[in-house]
């Protein structure tokens, strides 16, 4: 594993990606939309379906795109932390109502998102192989599952109720599948951005 120091310009890019992700998340998913979609429309069990299929994938996309666009170590962590802090700040400043079940904006929410970012970062930098498509898929699946498990252990028992054991396999499978999908989407978007802005970075 080779660790390189992240440059100030890369920090700015990662922060911008994280902040944009937070704004899009708060704009696109008003309070109650995720719960209604997951439980009333898709009839998925809970708690955790919204984390596995909506919030986790957004965090993963933001973190992996930041990691792919930067050479230095820490891009995914910076982007995910900015996502969490920016969503907390914007929701507080503009008084955007959020679902108390997800503890959005709290310190534990920031910790959960940071943990997902650290997981993505670790997978993207462990080993000697380049940041490729397979690594993105693995990072996405693992980070999404870690976020979901953290919510089950540390957040949902306080804000709502503990997860039922019989719902764990289905929700874990959904988290893995969504993580894989959004890892792949991050790779595709990175390819598009590389071509468009002619990022000739040989990894």
């Amino acid at each position, binding site marked *: 594993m080779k660790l390189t120091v992240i440059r100030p310009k890369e920090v700015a890019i990662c922060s911008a990606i994280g902040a944009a992700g937070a704004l899009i998340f708060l*704009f696109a998913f008003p309070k109650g*939309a995720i719960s209604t979609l997951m439980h009333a429309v898709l009839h998925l069990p809970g708690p955790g379906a919204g984390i596995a299929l909506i919030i986790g994938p957004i965090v993963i996309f933001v973190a992996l795109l930041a990691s792919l666009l930067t050479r230095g170590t820490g891009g995914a962590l910076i982007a995910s932390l900015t996502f969490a802090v920016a969503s907390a700040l914007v929701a507080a400043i503009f008084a955007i109502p959020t679902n108390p*079940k997800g503890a959005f904006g709290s310190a534990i929410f920031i910790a959960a998102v940071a943990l997902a970012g650290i997981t993505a970062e670790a997978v993207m930098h462990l080993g000697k192989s380049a940041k490729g498509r397979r690594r993105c898929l693995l990072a996405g699946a693992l980070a999404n599952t870690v976020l979901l498990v953290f919510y089950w252990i540390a957040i949902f028992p306080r804000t709502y109720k503990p997860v039922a054991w019989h719902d764990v396999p289905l929700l874990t499978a959904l988290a893995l599948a969504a993580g894989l999908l959004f890892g792949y989407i991050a790779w595709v978007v990175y390819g598009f951005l590389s071509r468009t802005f002619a990022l000739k970075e040989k990894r």
Partner: protein
Amino acid sequence: MCGPPDFAALETCVIRLAELSAAGLGTYAVCQTAAMCRGFASGRGKRQKKTSPHPPARPVAEGPNDHLDT
């Protein structure tokens, strides 16, 4: 599920996702058009270089068979 289902929120969500998708597609189209224009402009530049007003000098005749005018 915590609380009653909020279908108005879901409707807003769908509308906003559609707006974001449209904005994304628009940006993609603009990027592709710009890339196409850049490619077209660079191709025209290459053609102009080829038909430059200073053509390369004719090769010097070396052997007796190269005197085509005689």
